[in-house]
């Protein structure tokens, strides 16, 4: 089993009200020096079987059609090494 991570972010030119709210809150809480915050979504998909090109293509499809709203969001797909998965599950 391997884990594939899909990160979904609003496109850079799209307003991110949540990120802005976080950014505005930071100095009030004493955290200085952060000029911008963008907030996104991370999906961790546990894939049955090998993560080959076909599997990645399928994940790309599902990310494009379901996980991300590509009118306003971009996404990236990356495979996390199985070792990391094992590490995390200890």
């Amino acid at each position, binding site marked *: 089993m391997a884990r594939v991570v899909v990160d979904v972010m*609003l*496109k*850079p*030119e*799209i*307003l*991110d*009200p949540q990120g*802005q*709210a976080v950014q*505005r809150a930071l100095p009030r809480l004493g955290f200085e020096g952060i000029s911008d915050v963008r907030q996104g979504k991370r999906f961790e998909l546990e894939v049955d079987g090998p993560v080959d090109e076909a599997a990645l293509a399928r994940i790309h499809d599902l990310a494009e059609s379901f996980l991300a*709203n590509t*009118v*306003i969001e971009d996404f990236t797909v990356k495979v996390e090494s199985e070792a990391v998965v094992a590490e995390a599950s200890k």
Partner: protein
Amino acid sequence: MSRTPLDTVEHAAATPDVELPWAELGLKKDEYERIVEILGRRPTGAELAMYSVMWSEHCSYKSSKVHLRQFGEKAPENDALLVGIGENAGVVDVGQGYAVTFKVESHNHPSYVEPYQGAATGVGGIVRDIIAMGARPVAVVDPLRFGAADHPDTKRVLPGVVAGIGGYGNCLGLPNIGGEVVFDACYQGNPLVNAGCIGVMRHEDIHLAKASGAGNKVILYGARTGGDGIGGASILASETFDDAKPSKRPAVQVGDPFQEKLLIECTLEAFAEKLVVGIQDLGAAGLSCATSELASNGSGGMRVTLDDVPLRDSTLSPEEILMSESQERMCAVVEPEKVDRFLEICAKWDVIATVIGEVTDGDRLEIYWHGGKIVDVDPRTVAHEGPVYERPYARPEWQDALQADDAGKLPRPQSAEELKAQVLKLVASPNQASKKWITQQYDHFVQGNTVLAMPEDSGMIRVDEKTGLGVALATDGNGRYAKLDPYTGAQLALAEAYRNVATTGAKPLAVSDCLNFGSPEDPAVMWQFAEAVRGLADGCQQLGTPVTGGNVSLYNQTGEAAIHPTPVVAVLGVIDDVARRTPVAFQEEGQLLYLLGDTREEFGGSAWSQVVHDHLGGLPPKVDLERERLLAEILISASRDGMIDSAHDLSDGGLVQAVVESALLGGKGARLVVPDGLDAFTFLLSESAGRAVVAVPRSEEVRFNDMCGARGLPATRIGVVDGDTIEVQGEFEVTLAELREAHEATIPALLA
């Protein structure tokens, strides 16, 4: 940044031969030549950006202007009108020192591309129009039209639009009190998402958009400016000026309702302290529009330093900053000694505010960037003296055939059983079915002043808690009627909205409209538009309700197929005491049902012809505006004097639709008798205009009859509120439970 050389006015004058992408920005060759002629040189990139957005159909009304003039020329005398067409929104006197401003606009295309954000920012835009007049927004309404209810794309678009409207409005704390939802295959790919807003203020608080007084400061406040909605400007930026930029800018904007809420409170506080000379919201065309309109409506010129505009994205070019449609921004003109206080208020509300320029005593709009002058224009040529087209229009060839295809010839039900089956099919059809699943996603009652909301005939809001003064707003439009005859169709929309306001007991005062049509370059569409405007202007003149403003949305078409011509009309009314309102629901068993008005055999464009025969042809119902006026007077008097306990206007679906709605809402049935001279089918399903059904307490029957008799309004006793069925004597009987199942299950089954 490696932007060399900056395209300043000087640079433009020195390099007359540089080719600019005017065609890509949507300008025609003669329009570009006109700009060169006005300036006496080629425009700079920034100037071209401004002209191209301000001279677009959306901002300049270049195709519709010649027709819209009629709203001014035919405007009836009306003492209630405080501010007419041309401002951000019209303002109407509703008495007791209160004024109300209201307007309807479209956000059609963005809502198709990205339903949630498109619809949400549509609400945001209309709300800013209302605050720019100095009014506190108190309610919103949303007339919506989608493709066929069972089309898969409708299931994508509708839930997003509804969630977007609900989300934005709920976050702002504004009740949604009215509107419509209509399905028709003609809106496939071109859904109509119109949004209206009502605002209330005291007379002395009306504000107009203008910049006067040299030395006054121009303050941009609200959200930072980002790359939203500047698809066109990126052409200027990436291809002509700087190839390193991201080439695709989205045409979609994302709104932030909490920022808008701060903007409302901050603006109203600044108004209350009389800190504002002029104000303008930033909507379509963003800063290009706000600066050129403020300057051209004032007495002087304006100088703006674009470097001072707070940016969300530091890579934006000046052209993009001028064209950006980032949401939740406003522009105010403030006297120098009041600037500090204004900025203080903005800081209190956590709203970013920046002085970006000042009013000058010249007559030019000058914009600077990195020390260079990139815009030097007469603001009037940008904002008001755009191109005006007398587009050719012609009655389409198919119009005669369409009108000859008489719906009266369609096969009618042959038996009582068939009639009953058709009635059940009608009340369950998507257009006639209960829209509760949609409207209950909106907050109707936030702020605690909502008196009536969907599915009542019009929304009603209490304006003054002590006196009970209130306003009512109804929106209506029937694309099927307008397709058959645009002149009559527009008047029918007006008549229905007018009637809906009166049915609740309010006196109709003024009109706003949102005119949704196909491409003006098609002479047939242009004819529909011209006819609809003529019909609406004539109708408003006759009813004494002036058009105070509105919006035109053209190019609602895919390929050759235009939407039905769809003029949506909003009528605003006033009621002295909202406690006197008349609801739709039956209140008490034993009350007598009266049908007001005349019923003729009119089935052209009717719901019955659509649901049973999938037919559109013939002529729409006749309009008699004098009759509408009389009916309204009777409904208002009867409400004021307590002679009726419920009332419902008759429109699509006819009498049976109205009775079913009143019965289901009240949980009480009715026994109906077909009046002499009518057959059951016509009685139940004809869509003759100028009618309403009212429930009269027995103790008031004589008085009510006397009033109708004396005023000459036909009033026919058709039955009584009774039991838990709807019985049409001698025809059929159907239980409320069966009707409720038919009426309320349709929409959730299709969309939930």
